[in-house]
């Protein structure tokens, strides 16, 4: 049983179709202007399954929107006339703010093509910016809500070294053997360092995802970091952890957001196993894609629920135990990275979440109009 979520496509079910997914032809959109507004709009529309971005144009070849278009395989045009004559084009979005461009478009557009420009474009840009800010807030809020479930793990990991420190310090007040004093003082220093590391890990994880440009992320290291964080949320002592890492696997994205994705997937996997089973983390670099697989041997997901797991506020956890935003946010982060997320699940046997990203060598290829 498989469910897929990818940018440009709503959830699809493969192998077994649960119910017919209504299909209607996508809205074919062209974007004129690749500045900040055009880039933001490109990113937003790219994630909507019912919209097909057929092309983009900007007179500045180094415009950020054109770079982004290359990354997500949207065709870049050199002439406005070529772009707006694409057969079946429904809508042209002019984000240049240039009245001359608006009048040219109004004159040359085919009757069946609508135009969005001027103040309407500005309004649209403002809405896209607002939606993007909300997504960021939602991701952070969901992460903070998740950290609430770390309390037991943090208390366990903090109070154990504190018990050692207290016990040794009490003993030192009466200890007369100098060698024993040195040994116990060293144990205290080590215990303090362990406690400090817990605080460092958690303060780093709980901060807001940095707004830095996407960068190359070493996936194996990020998965290991996520395991360290996830152990505060779920007990890993009885979980067998298999790491099938291919060396030097990288993806492009926001490292803080990817860490959050991995922590969520690992936490879900362990919870599905009710703390007994095998967690497999696998990374693989293929010719044109990079894949990360997170598998568990847990309860699996019922077929009738599989198609809904990426919906916002959908959860099978008891009230107060989950926000229902975890997988929804994961899907958004993966889509922002131009990746896809697919789930294979069998009730009673477990689930595998497969994350597929464009490989770094293929992501930057320029696609030119035919």
């Amino acid at each position, binding site marked *: 049983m498989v469910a897929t979520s990818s940018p440009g496509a709503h959830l699809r079910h493969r192998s077994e179709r649960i119910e017919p997914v209504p299909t209607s032809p996508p809205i074919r959109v062209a974007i004129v202007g690749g500045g900040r507004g055009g880039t933001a709009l490109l990113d937003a529309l790219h994630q909507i399954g019912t919209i097909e971005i057929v092309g983009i144009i900007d007179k500045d070849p180094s415009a950020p929107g054109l770079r982004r278009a290359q990354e997500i395989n949207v065709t870049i045009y050199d002439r406005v006339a070529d772009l707006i004559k694409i057969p079946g084009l429904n809508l042209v979005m002019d984000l240049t703010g240039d009245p001359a461009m608006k009048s040219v478009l109004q004159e040359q557009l085919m009757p069946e093509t609508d135009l969005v420009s001027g103040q309407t474009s500005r309004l649209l840009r403002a809405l896209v910016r607002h939606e993007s800010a909300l997504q960021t807030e939602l991701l952070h809020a969901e992460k903070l809500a998740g950290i609430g479930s770390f309390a037991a793990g943090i208390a366990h990991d903090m109070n154990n070294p504190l018990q*050692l420190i*207290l016990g040794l310090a009490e003993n030192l007040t009466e200890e007369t053997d100098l060698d024993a004093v040195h040994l116990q003082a060293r144990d205290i220093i080590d215990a303090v360092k362990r406690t400090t590391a817990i605080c460092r890990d958690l303060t780093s994880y709980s901060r807001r995802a940095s707004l830095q440009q996407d960068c190359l992320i070493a996936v194996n290291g990020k998965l290991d970091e996520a395991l360290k964080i996830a152990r505060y949320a779920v*007990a890993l002592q009885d979980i067998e952890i298999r790491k099938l890492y291919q060396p030097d696997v990288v993806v492009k994205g926001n490292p803080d957001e990817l860490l959050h994705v991995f922590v969520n997937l690992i936490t879900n996997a362990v919870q599905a196993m009710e703390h007994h089973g095998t967690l497999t983390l696998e990374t693989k670099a293929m010719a044109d894609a990079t894949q990360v697989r997170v598998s568990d041997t847990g309860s699996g997901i019922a077929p009738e629920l599989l198609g809904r797991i990426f919906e916002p506020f959908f959860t099978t956890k008891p009230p107060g135990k989950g926000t229902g935003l975890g997988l929804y946010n994961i899907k958004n982060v993966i889509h922002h990275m131009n990746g896809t997320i697919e789930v294979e699940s069998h009730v009673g046997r477990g689930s595998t979440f497969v994350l597929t990203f464009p490989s770094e060598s293929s992501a930057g290829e320029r696609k030119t109009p035919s």
Partner: protein
Amino acid sequence: MSEFKSGFFVGGESSNGRVLIVDDEPDIRKVVRMTLQKAGYDVLEAENGEKAIEVINSGENRLLLDVIICDIRMPKVNGIEAIAYFRQNYPRVPLIVLTGFPDTDMATSLLRQGVVDYLVKPVEGDKLKASVARAMEQRELAHL
């Protein structure tokens, strides 16, 4: 203090009592052992519930054991499962919980099940010794 052998308590009148500490953290077992041995107790250790059950069922330990100190969050057989086993099979041996995570609901539930004390780490040596001493009194009453 009576002679201590690895894995077995040895009977003798000189010991203040025989305590089994069950915790997955070697550091915790070490420091609890240190505190209790200085107070005249014999101490055996187990790293999880499964090992604890093995230790109790070894030799005459089940007869000589006076108090069990048990953590909650442990691999294999965790504290909750282990405590249920101890209460069922060794109802006369007093149990003290020593946990890193204070949880009021769990504390209430465990005390209802007959656990004599619920201590949250870090606990001072004097408090731990007082708790073990109270448990010893209960153990002696159980023998009457």
